[in-house]
């Protein structure tokens, strides 16, 4: 499937609320689709929700989203996926009834290419990338949590995205594993795939992210070069606390 080349994702005045709960109020943010952006923020800040809104899983209550100059605010997730905007889920949602390979293959054949053999290659490759070959034939239901997270990534990759939204795929990795993950991501970067990555383990994030966004209470607290953002004492207070472990 030929993906329309584009360069800019633009969200303006995004609000999201569930019943009474105001989760996002007034997010404005623009990115180059080849950028690597990291998002941090205290729990419940609205990061995942923002991701859902950008990837089309949930419509915003207010605000607009543009891809180049096309308004995709109402575009359902599946169409965005076909245009190359794909997200992973913080709480993994594997297709538990089918094998790991099939999980990835569905994505490939529906968003990357209708051609079977090509789809096979894509699926296998993204499994390879995420180091899941050894459990390719396992029923997805039977794999452990971190494998599930990897599966999320592999599945997203198989759609051959231009812009990847990653939601805490690094959580719970040992340093070694984390480094492997970073390498994987960097290879993707090398292919010009854009990344928006939510992660609490900042030092991993910083190996990839060129820009850092810190959210709190559904607002963008600070945005810009990682060093600046991390230095921002508001961020310190809201997010890092006294912690030295960054």
């Amino acid at each position, binding site marked *: 499937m030929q993906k329309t080349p584009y360069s800019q994702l633009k969200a303006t005045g995004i609000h999201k609320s569930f019943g009474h709960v105001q989760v996002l109020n007034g997010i404005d943010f623009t990115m180059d689709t080849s950028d690597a952006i990291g998002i941090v923020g205290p729990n419940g800040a609205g990061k995942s929700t923002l991701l859902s809104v950008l990837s089309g899983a949930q419509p915003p209550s207010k605000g607009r989203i543009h891809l180049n100059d096309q308004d995709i605010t109402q575009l359902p997730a599946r169409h965005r996926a076909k245009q190359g905007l794909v997200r992973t889920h*913080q709480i993994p949602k594997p297709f538990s009834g089918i094998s790991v390979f099939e999980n990835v293959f569905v994505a490939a054949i529906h968003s990357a290419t209708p051609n079977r053999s090509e789809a096979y290659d894509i699926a296998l490759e993204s499994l390879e990338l995420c180091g899941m070959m050894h459990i390719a034939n396992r029923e997805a239901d039977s794999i452990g949590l971190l494998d599930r997270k990897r599966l999320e990534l592999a599945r997203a990759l198989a759609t051959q995205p231009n812009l990847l939204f990653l939601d805490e795929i690094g959580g719970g990795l040992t340093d070694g594993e984390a480094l492997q993950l970073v390498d994987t991501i960097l290879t993707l970067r090398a292919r010009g795939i854009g990344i928006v990555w939510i992660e609490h383990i900042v030092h991993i994030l910083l190996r990839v992210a060129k820009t850092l966004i810190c959210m709190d209470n559904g607002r963008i607290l600070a945005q810009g070069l990682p060093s600046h953002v991390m230095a921002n004492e508001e961020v310190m207070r809201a997010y890092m606390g006294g912690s030295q472990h*960054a």
Partner: protein
Amino acid sequence: MLNISDLDVRYGQFRAVQGVSLSIIKGETVSLIGANGAGKSTFLRAIAGALPCHQGRITFKDENITLSSASHRVQRGLALVPEGRRLFSDMTVEENLLLGKTTNRDGEWTLERIFETFPNLVKRRTAKAGNLSGGEQQATAIGRALMSNPELLILDEVSLGLSPLVVDQVYDSIEKLRQTGTTIVLVEQDLARAIAFSNRAVCMLEGRIVLDKPCAETNRDEITQAYFGLDPSQTQEAI
């Protein structure tokens, strides 16, 4: 306090935990380290009674609990914060917490204490657990376990998905817990923190214990080596 002798846990014929022996003394803080898929969760779930032991023996406070039900173990004061939270997602945060004190063992943990410890939960008190953010869910899960006032608290991937601020809060509260004499076993992927916090490091690789030392005597590299299986010399030095 907790004695495990060559424990074997299987999924089908796949041995996820292979003849592990371990004994934990009252008041200890043990951090269990190991690569993804090493069998930590399996091991812990077996201790908590969520998985049947294929062979081996578990005694807790000199009582053989190898065959007793999970609920009985909680009754006796052994609580697990399961990996992946496992909240009752269509019940409110408060209800989830209250469920924690089903066994109502007495102790100082109450709803109020929990909400003090995790202030970010207060405003979500009546929200359905399923709608919480990842971190809020993690906090709720820990709170739920604390509500049973355990003597041995097992935390699988505690800090998973928690923002540094909250992580600090969590560790502070565990610290408090520790001072009250509670024994703690935790899985923490942040090595530095693990070593800093606990007084004993147990390292798993492919279902076996490959390293078991007081934190004072070990260091980062040794451990990293251990769980990539670089150094076979020190396999299985169970106590």
